């Protein structure tokens, strides 16, 4: 960090100059820390691509580094804007405590809401919603599948419920496995009775009842109350050990809740946990309340035959009415073995004699009723439902990256509703086949190999669909392989539909890559020429584990990735990193214009650095105050072949060593961005000497505009460049408009950026506005992100490599020359495109409209 005292005492220069140098040095330092913080967050994101092996040490070390850098950013901001933002230190401490809590505990139940709608749940919320319900939310939100949309009572409610009734003393010893079997069973029974007698805290009751009345459950006001424990259905299967209470009237929901909660502590569950050695883990139960269906057909689909080994078939079981008969396996049902590939040929089927079915009882619960004779021996699944079911199941499987065991129902309207999805438990010998499956890929032509970087690990296959424009996105078919020139936030909306993504350009750490990981879509970016090879209509397999694209669809490879028992996304380290990344990188401060853009609304590290960066840039963008320039006569002037009258302040390495003259030439300059920019600006034909063809209206306006004539005296003087070897802050007042270029150019693309600001002019406002529109067209075409406000334009670009940066600085140089007197020529809106295109075609030296020549 810069020591202000050192700067003030260590050198013998005019005090104003020193403070200016200090300001810019600190600003540059802040920018470097800012980039470092963004890099660290990007690094965490990159590790989530699945291509890396990391452990908890890595997570700890990166969090330490991040804390360090964020602290320095706040410190530097308070140097630039003296003590204005001390409050940020408090925000920082608060965010830090939160992160530390997550990092240091093996597992803690997060604080959250008491209840959540299913439609608000994602897999990341497993700790709040339990495995089962979080997965259901994921099916609805990320896969757009039809699920029963109710709500959940969270694990946070569970914790409050236990504490409110002082049940911790009974719960803890049971969780820790302290008793022998006999005592344990006795204690478990006691606890169950206590739970059933316990009171639900008033504020939780209130939340539950609010949800009960607001959820769309018009048909019956009956609910299926389902267990959703933390850890259930994931690494260890508790299948069937927890209770589900069906057909519960709203008035009885509380007792059903308690019944489900109590099943967490049943002797069977405790024994099972002890045997599996998971005593140390906190036990917690979320409870799902889903509108009770009265289905026509229900059943289970396995996306692999648990006894077969090829993974090329699905197994479906179905019965009339509710699915209990299938799950319990007590009576005959329909069973089908169907090919997993379209047209989904039925390989084998057994239509059972279904004499009974479960239906909803009148008051509550369910009952067995007879099946009408004519329905007893017919298949309860027709072909089209079956196909729809298989397609849905395959989507879930691809997304979850493991074979699935899915419960479903079909309602009266013929709609499939998914009730539950979890990993299918397979026999051990399935692992042995992986080699054979992987070897099958050798028979397919490789069309891309080791080009680009894996941004999201996995394997996907389908038909290529190249998307060039935003309009193309409407036609993107589900399951296709998305091929793009650039990664782009605008394309993110179709990511969930894609089976894989391949791009020419893009970063692992970009927004779109993050979305790809979120939706678990296998992705390779930065291949440089995928769009030339992967043409729309081609069938390909994208192996974003090995970074290979094959021609053809390799079913074996798709199957191979499903064999993993626990996909890497489900491991402890991944979950921890993902949770932490979310904690540090979620951005709440997105709009700098908003009233909420202040320290009080900063919650995460990302918020803090976003805010600090914006405040620092604003401070610099205010430009140089005339009083800061009282010493300007003593500074170095740059000799140029154009009348720019440019003064240079070197903050380190910007001027060649041993130069002490007060007037230097370009040759003595070693600030590369400034050198490139000025070479472009002073090239023949760029700086316009001839008087421009000013028409009467434009001419008059230059004399009548009060604003311009008032601000005249200040503007002329401020042609100043604050530089170092890699850094440039250039303030140019040219006539009546103002250019500001702030930028950095190095070999590390992460430190590279340009911030360009252009404002004002002498002509009437409409012409000045047209001029910034010309600028906007040109800058956008050159990949800058552009903000336009009246006669002000702000353009930014960052993180591009040195050769590209050189081009951009050349462009800015040419633009400054080109637009200097352009406003007078822009007589109507049509001129905007005309002049923008003229520049883009490299014809800027002919600064006249064709008809004027």
């Amino acid at each position, binding site marked *: 960090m810069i020591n202000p005292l050192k700067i003030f005492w260590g050198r013998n220069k005019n005090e104003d100059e020193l403070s200016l140098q200090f300001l810019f040095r600190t600003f540059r330092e802040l920018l470097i820390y800012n980039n470092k913080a963004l890099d660290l967050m990007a690094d965490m994101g990159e*590790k989530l691509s699945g*291509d*890396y*092996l*990391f*452990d*908890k*040490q*890595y997570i700890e*070390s990166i969090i330490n580094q991040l804390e360090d850098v964020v602290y320095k950013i706040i410190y530097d901001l308070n140097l630039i804007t003296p003590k204005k933002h001390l409050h940020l230190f408090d925000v920082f401490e608060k965010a830090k405590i939160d992160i530390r809590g997550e990092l240091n505990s093996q597992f803690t139940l997060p604080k959250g809401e008491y209840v959540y709608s299913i439609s608000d749940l994602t897999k990341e919320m497993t700790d709040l919603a339990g495995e089962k319900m979080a997965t259901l939310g994921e099916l609805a939100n990320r896969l757009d599948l039809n699920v029963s949309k109710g709500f959940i009572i969270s694990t946070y409610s569970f914790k409050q419920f236990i504490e409110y009734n002082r049940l911790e003393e009974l719960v803890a010893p049971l969780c820790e496995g302290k008793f022998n079997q006999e005592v344990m069973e006795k204690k478990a029974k006691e606890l169950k009775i206590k739970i059933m007698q316990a009171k639900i805290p008033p504020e939780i009751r209130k939340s539950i009842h609010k949800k009960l009345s607001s959820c769309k459950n018009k048909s019956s006001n009956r609910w299926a109350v389902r267990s959703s424990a933390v850890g259930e259905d994931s690494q260890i299967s508790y299948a069937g050990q927890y209770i589900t209470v069906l057909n519960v009237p709203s008035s009885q929901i509380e007792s059903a809740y308690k019944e489900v909660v109590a099943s967490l502590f049943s002797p069977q569950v405790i024994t099972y946990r002890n045997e599996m050695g998971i005593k140390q883990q906190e036990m917690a139960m979320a409870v799902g309340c889903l509108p009770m269906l009265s289905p026509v057909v229900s059943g289970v689909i396995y996306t692999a035959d648990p006894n077969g080994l090829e993974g090329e078939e699905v197994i479906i079981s179905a019965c009339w009415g509710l699915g209990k008969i299938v799950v319990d396996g007590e009576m005959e049902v329909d069973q089908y073995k169907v090919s997993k590939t379209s047209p989904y040929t039925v390989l084998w089927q057994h239509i059972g004699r279904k004499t009974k079915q479960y239906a909803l009882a009148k008051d509550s619960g369910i009952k067995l009723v007879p099946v009408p004779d004519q329905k007893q021996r017919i298949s309860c699944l027709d072909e089209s439902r079956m196909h729809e079911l298989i397609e849905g199941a395959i989507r879930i499987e691809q997304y979850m990256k493991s074979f699935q065991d899915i419960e479903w129902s079909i309602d009266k309207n013929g709609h499939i509703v998914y009730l539950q999805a979890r990993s299918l438990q397979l026999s051990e010998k399935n692992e042995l086949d*992986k*080699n054979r499956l*992987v*070897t099958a890929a050798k028979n397919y032509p490789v069309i891309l190999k080791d080009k680009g970087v894996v941004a999201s690990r996995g394997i996907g296959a389908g038909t290529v669909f190249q998307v060039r424009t935003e309009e193309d996105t409407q036609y993107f078919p589900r399951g296709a392989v998305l091929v793009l020139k650039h990664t782009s936030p605008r394309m993110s909306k179709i990511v969930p539909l894609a089976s894989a993504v391949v791009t020419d350009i893009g970063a692992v750490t970009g927004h779109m890559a993050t979305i790809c990981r979120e939706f678990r879509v296998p992705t390779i970016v930065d291949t440089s020429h995928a769009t030339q090879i992967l043409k729309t209509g081609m069938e390909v397999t994208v192996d974003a*584990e*090995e*970074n290979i694209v094959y021609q053809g669809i390799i079913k074996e490879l798709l199957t*191979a990735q499903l064999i*993993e028992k*626990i996909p*890497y996304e489900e*491991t*402890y*380290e991944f979950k921890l990193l993902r949770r932490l990344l979310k904690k540090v990188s979620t951005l709440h401060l997105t709009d700098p214009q908003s009233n909420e853009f202040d320290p009080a609304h900063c919650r995460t590290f990302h918020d803090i650095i976003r805010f600090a960066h914006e405040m620092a840039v604003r401070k610099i963008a205010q430009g140089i105050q005339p009083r800061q320039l009282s010493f300007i006569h003593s500074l170095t002037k740059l000799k140029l072949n154009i009348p720019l009258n440019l003064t240079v302040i070197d903050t380190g390495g910007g001027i060649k060593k041993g130069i002490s003259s007060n007037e230097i030439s370009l040759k003595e300059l070693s600030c590369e961005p400034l050198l490139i920019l000025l070479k472009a600006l002073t090239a023949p034909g760029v700086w316009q000497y001839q008087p421009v063809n000013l028409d009467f209206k434009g001419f008059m306006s230059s004399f009548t505009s009060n604003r311009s004539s008032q601000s005249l005296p200040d503007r002329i003087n401020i042609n100043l460049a604050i530089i170092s070897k890699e850094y440039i802050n250039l303030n140019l007042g040219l006539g009546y408009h103002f250019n500001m270029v702030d930028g950095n150019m190095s070999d590390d693309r992460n430190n590279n950026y340009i911030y360009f600001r252009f404002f004002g002019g002498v002509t009437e406002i409409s012409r000045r506005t047209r001029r910034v529109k010309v600028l906007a067209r040109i800058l956008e075409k050159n990949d800058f992100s552009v903000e336009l406000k009246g006669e002000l334009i702000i353009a930014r670009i960052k993180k591009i490599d040195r050769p590209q940066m050189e081009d951009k600085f050349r462009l800015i140089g040419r633009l400054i020359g080109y637009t200097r007197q352009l406003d007078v020529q822009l007589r109507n809106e049509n001129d905007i495109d005309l002049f923008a295109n003229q520049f883009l075609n490299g014809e800027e030296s002919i600064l006249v409209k064709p008809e004027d020549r």
Partner: protein
Amino acid sequence: MNKTSSVMIIDDEPIVCKRLRSTLEKANLEIETFTDPNEAVKRFSEKLFNVLITDLKMKEMDGIDVLKLVKKVSPETKVIIITGVATVEKAKEALKLGAYDFIAKPFKLSQLRNLVMKGIGLSE
């Protein structure tokens, strides 16, 4: 490909074993993993492996000790040391004791696999 080569992996962090196993299995290698180095060393006395991948810092036994023991029994086994950034210097020392190479966490799975393949003599 000739006779399948065998690889032993020792790391007290289960995630390392799990992910390395899954990566190396795809390369048609025979894999055994151990989170307890004592058990691993015992197993090594029963069966020799072509490649041994071991973490440097483990609670039960130091990776350097594992290296020494294994080199005594089977000098031709290629030993690859996994290290954290903080212990790179120590890993370099391991090279003097006959380790084949070392790799610092976090690393790309493909990097380690290439290293293993090079060790076996099947460079990719």
